[in-house]
């Protein structure tokens, strides 16, 4: 656990907002505040959420073959889609808001 160094901030807190069918997994919970190690990524966040809410969140979001994000799922970090950032490797900062959307459409 390299990040437990004396005098350094050991963890970050991110706010996760869950929408649409993701709420079925969380039992209706809309916002989850998650503590993560510094330099954590979206992938780490999904792992952490799966500890809280079970494997289903991984099944929905990750392609089992490639391990990448499944098509049409949109995860936004402070309003920016991670597909245009570093995808699952997108680094999170303390205080970030991450929004999880399953495939949605309309007009």
């Amino acid at each position, binding site marked *: 656990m390299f990040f437990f160094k004396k005098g350094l901030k050991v963890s970050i807190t991110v706010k996760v*907002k869950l*929408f*649409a*069918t993701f*709420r079925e997994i969380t039992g209706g919970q*809309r916002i989850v505040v998650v503590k993560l190690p510094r330099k954590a990524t979206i992938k780490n966040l999904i792992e952490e959420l799966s500890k809280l809410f079970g494997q289903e969140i991984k099944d929905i979001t990750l392609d089992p073959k490639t391990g990448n994000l499944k*098509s*049409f799922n*949109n995860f*936004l970090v*402070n*309003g*920016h*889609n991670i*597909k*245009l950032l570093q995808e699952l490797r997108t680094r999170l900062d303390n205080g970030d808001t991450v*929004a999880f*959307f*399953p*495939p*949605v*459409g*309309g*007009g």
Partner: protein
Amino acid sequence: MYGWIGEILRVDLTSGKVSIEELKFAKKFIGGRGLGVKILYDELEPKIDPLSTENKLIFATGPVTGTRAPTSGRYCVVSKSPLTGTIFDSHSGGFWGPELKFAGYDGIIIEGRMKKPVYIWIADKQVEIRDASDIWGLDTHKTTEKLVKETDPKAKVACIGPAGERQVLISAIINDKHRAAGRGGLGAVMGYKRLKAIVVRGTGKVDIANEEEFDEIYDESMVVIRKHPITDKSLPTLGTAVLVNIVNEYGMYPTRNFQEGVFEDAEGVSGEKITETILVGRRACYACPIGCGRITKTSKKEGEGPEYETLWAFSAQCGVNNLEAVTHANYLCNELGLDTISTGNTIGCAMEMSQKGFLKEKIEFGDAEKLVELVEKIAFKEGVGKELSEGSKRFAEKHGCPELAMQVKGLELPAYDPRGAQGHALAYATSNRGGCHLRAYLIGPELLGTPALVDRTKPEGKADLVRNFQNLFSVIESMILCVFSSFALSPYHYAKFMTAVTGLEYTGKDLMTIGERIWNLERLFNIREGFGRSDDSLPPRFLKTPLPEGGSRERTVFLEKMLEEYYSLRGWDDRGIPLKSKLEELGLSR
């Protein structure tokens, strides 16, 4: 003919003459929107008053209407809009469109004006113009019920409410009680003509050229629709209103007349909230495997909606967080025959004008009671509602603040702030019918990642995307299918349907060329009316004032750069006029 019936009904209300004509231009313009535009371009004199006997109102179907092709239950109304002065086509789902095909017509051209209110009763080949004195004044629901009783229990009704009767410029045509050909004020054209309703009962069918080929492409399409998470899960279970939260998180949910891009109370008036609280059922249009329609119930009554756009128009746009009031405003629009987008947008505009001291009357953001009251006043042209009934552009101009009207070419903008998505901004600016999100739905690639995600903040490459979407949607709206089918289907599927249904060979490329032809003819119509480059613009707010907070904070639109590229890709000169060579290529030169 296959697919097409081959016959168009022409009704001259001035003389009462009804005639049947052979369908022309079908191969080159398909039907629906394309057909309507072609007829109006040829038949209307330039610069006529849309609310005069010279304007015509076309109800059109397409070759796949009334077949089993998924989402083929639509029709459109085409006219010169009294709200925008542009060519205008307004679309609706439900069951009315297929019924007209079953009665044996591809479309109806309505001309002239009756001396007294009438409705048209079509029972297959029998067409009557009937007195409507006793239904004039009724809302769309009572009108529908009465006319079904008076004609045939299986008849389908498209009608106007009190708003259309009073020629409210943001009035709609409502069919099947809850479906609206909403945009562009075409209800006012019907009202001017004193045509209360068109009631149809058809017992025929649509002949398909190659049943085997049709079954093949039908099965193939259904697999794609069933496999796509948006058409198979998102739209059926959560409806269009599921977009509220994602657009809000992107910081593009227009709030308090587009002054902000994040609505603090979005959750309470979101698709998720509707599902939890007022949703009692779902409804699909004819031949639709998606079924995005919402049946809802408030403490007062049951109705349909609100859909995404309506939900926004009466909530974030007006700063209202009361779902019951928003839903009630929606029900009222359906009953009174108003376009929900333009109505909510115009009320939001009045609220900002009041906030900034341009109005004597106090109309405050967040006032749910006032919102519902204003919807009624607009429909009946009462009090301040009389001025509001002319839409935001005329209203804001009259009070000396045209910059506060969030519109393009006079049509009120819908529920996406263009500052957060450059391509969508270009789509708004170049739309042939004004401020509309469905001429080219760049929200797909820019926000939702369909078909693939592109960077919404960059203007590069957007002109080409907008052009392609515009051409494709022109085709979809001429066949006619619901544009929601395009989340799953592609030009390949559309071409296969066209070929199987009509027996004429179409490729995806052929269809895109037809789409381009339709787009250019609409452009020529508008140019003839005096529209030009300066009208391909956006309210100054979007070009100069950055969004204050949220996911699109500090963004504005880089319009000029994209517009130049767009004109060049379109084969238009720098005034936005199609070059002779382009018109020759598309078979549009005279």
